[in-house]
């Protein structure tokens, strides 16, 4: 087992290099660079100064040389500095000689996105598992049908539209919740209890809305898994030997039905850091989605590459974790894996 893990981890290195090479090339194939931004299209800004900037950022060198320089820095885990955000570090904070700390772009954006997505995933799971179970047990009954209907309405409603409607209703018509942002303006002067309440009320809409739209998929997964399992012989056996229905469903069936969910959760790990541009734009949340999107538009290569690298590393780790969790949860897979090596 250990040998298997080491082998998988070592395999990740060439994979990561390959991914980074491809994304670096694609990014640089897109026309334009940071000196072509809309703000730079100003007759007062001369072409010579743009050329100087290009030299400063090594953008005048061939792409493959630029990639070499980037790889050399990455070997020491140096993600570099953003072009567009006044040389802010891409990943982690730096301290200058006077002790002024400059925080990294990803360092600031990642915790926000991670928190929202984890809360969202948590809420989705808490709602989807019971809904899936009910739908499977009352298959074709009115409960099943109404759950399916509810899920698909949630799935089909455009998130931004629902967001704006709820923002209008909860924030403008009734002054119940804040409309956008992460904190109230007087957050700094609040006590701890108010701070928590303030943060939670700001997070409510951005967390709930993606959960509602994401509910359909996972509920369906749980429901189908459950339906498969409930028709297995061993469930019939369990029922035949007089176990009560609760025990049959929650102890015997559920554990097996949830197995495919592990894969889904494993695969959602890279999504956890991704963030949604649309939600973050509407709710004015300075998260990863907006950061990535703005960086692509500005051709801010160090930031784009930084996010892509972290994202692809997490995807690979997520896959590995999913496989391992699967093996841990399902003895059949575990034996198969060991024999396979």
């Amino acid at each position: 087992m250990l040998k298997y893990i080491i082998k998988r981890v070592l395999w990740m290195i060439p994979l990561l290099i390959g991914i980074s090479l491809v994304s670096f090339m694609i990014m640089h194939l897109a026309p334009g660079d940071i000196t072509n931004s809309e703000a730079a299209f100003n007759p007062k800004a001369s072409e010579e100064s743009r050329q100087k900037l290009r030299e400063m950022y090594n953008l005048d060198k061939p792409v493959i040389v630029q990639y070499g320089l980037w790889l050399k820095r990455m070997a020491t885990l140096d993600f570099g500095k953003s072009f567009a955000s006044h040389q802010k570090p891409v990943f982690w904070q730096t301290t200058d000689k006077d002790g002024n700390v400059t925080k990294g772009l990803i360092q600031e954006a990642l915790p926000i996105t991670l928190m929202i997505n984890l809360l969202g995933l948590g809420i989705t799971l808490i709602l989807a598992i019971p809904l899936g179970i009910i739908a499977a047990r009352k298959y074709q009954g009115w409960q099943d049908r109404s759950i399916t209907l509810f899920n698909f309405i949630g799935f089909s409603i455009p998130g931004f539209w629902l967001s704006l409607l709820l923002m209008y209703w909860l924030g403008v018509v009734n002054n119940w919740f804040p409309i956008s942002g992460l904190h109230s303006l007087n957050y700094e002067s609040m006590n701890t209890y108010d701070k928590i309440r303030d943060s939670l009320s700001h997070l409510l809409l951005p967390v709930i809305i993606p959960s509602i739209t994401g509910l359909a998929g996972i509920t369906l997964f749980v429901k189908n898994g459950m339906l498969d399992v409930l028709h297995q012989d061993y469930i019939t056996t369990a029922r035949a030997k007089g176990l009560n229905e609760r025990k049959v469903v929650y102890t015997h069936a559920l554990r097996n039905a949830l197995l495919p969910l592990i894969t889904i959760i494993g695969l959602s790990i890279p999504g956890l850091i991704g963030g949604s541009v649309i939600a973050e734009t509407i709710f004015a949340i300075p998260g990863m989605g907006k950061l990535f999107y703005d960086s692509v538009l500005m051709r801010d290569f160090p930031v784009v590459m930084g996010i892509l690298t972290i994202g692809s590393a997490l995807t690979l780790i997520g896959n590995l974790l999913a496989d391992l969790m699967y093996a841990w949860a399902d003895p059949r897979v575990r034996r198969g894996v060991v024999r396979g090596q």
Partner: protein
Amino acid sequence: MTTPYSSFIKSASIVLVSLGITACDPSISSSTDTTDFSKSYPIESGGTLVNAMTGEPSGLISMIAGESASSAITSNIFNSLLKYDKNLELEGDLVKNWEISADQKTIVFKLKPDLKWADGKPLTSADVLFTWQAVTDEKTASPYASDFQLVKKAETPDPLTFKISYEQAYAPALDSWAGLQILPKHLLMGQDLHTTSFARSPVGSHYYKLDSWAHGENLKLSKNPNSVLGQARINQLITRIIPDNSAQFLELMADHIDYMSLDPIKYSRIIPARPELRKKLALYKELGNSYTYMGFNLKHKPFDDARVRRAINHAIDKQEIIDGVYLGLGINIASPYKPGTRWSNPTLKPYPYDPAKARALLKEAGFNDTDDDGILERDGKPFAFEIVTNQNKEREKSAVLIQRRLKDVGIDVKIRAIEWASFISRFIKTGDFDVVVLGWGLGLDPDQYNIWHSSQQAPGQFNFIGYNNPQADKLLEQGRLELNPDKRMKIYHELSRVLLEDSPIVYLSAGYGLSAIHKRVRGIDNPAPPAGIGHNSQDWYIPQSLRRNEIIQ
């Protein structure tokens, strides 16, 4: 920044907001419901103004960060040597007066006495010299360096005097010094302007100083007790960063922000239709600082023929564009200068919409519909071209209206809208386009050498339409050498006339800048003077009884 779906969100939300309005409870409860905003209140200092911006500044050193989000904040923190007054005439900002030598090559600035930085240190001509050195330094790679590189010698004979000499007279010099924000030498000496933490915690000399900057959330400014121009009335300025326009508008409706800029639909349809918004919001319009144009690639046939350009100019109904795209909130212009300022030539009139004349001119240029398909031909080739523009809703809509009008006179037009960086590098830099729809600033200084002079056509330079007219070249050169405002005015009036006659571009419209400000904010000039409503923002005030209940620290 415009995202492809933000405009989609915008238009969808307009529908939503206007639907919501009729469907939902019409009385939006607010503590200020019973307040009478029409009453007059005594002038009082204090209070907090909250506004919103869609983008976040990249940094607060404006000679490096060129975007509007950055200058919106730095203009409250830093001073320049000169500034523009409400009628867009130059006046002293840090300087008491300035003198131009008889040969027009030397300018002597006299600083006001006893100037201080926000940290209490004296502000002297050494700081001005330092700023000039910084902006011209190779390492700074400032996009705005070129104006300042023309300064041959800069001296500081005493702490209140800053003397500069140019190789030859350079008329845009004064405007360039009005645009250069003076930085403190004692804090930036020996620092790399690109990496210094000063860009995120600046110390300036203007009415306000930066208190805090929560990344992606807000910037808080408060009154600078050492302000060189006296004290502003409002204590605190908070700028919230809200990227989505609809979310900004919801915040404005819920009274969480006081000030936002509007699009024409919100200005002329949504707010006037809702009494409870009309009661608490005052609407302002001011002539913006830019215009939209359609530019021809003068190196491509048939656009090298002035008759063809004039014909197209006559064939386009500009009023229709203003009414359709800007809901009437724009004006027709006939020169690249802001109407109402001295540089704009009042005798010039835009090309009237006249399809008959357009057809006649095209016929004169050799275009005829020989095969009766409704499209004109010359030498057997149909008159067809592509309008390229970037993904900007207003420009795309203008292009569609142009397409239709040109179809009427027998020209087949296709439209392509692409993302900005691709647009610039694939079409503008390579010169591989027929016609573009773009915008230029209505510069406060009349010098537009970089846009119109025939020497400015290399890739990356701004005369990408390839305009080459010896008469215009000569006027542009003269205008740069003449510092006397009245003589200079004549030169640029003549230039505008030449440009209008030659029609290398079609002026489509200059849109108004629109904004809504909560009626609690008093002292705003309405109607706006040429410089816009912001020119006296230090005199705006919020009466005690109209302030928000919550105390924002």
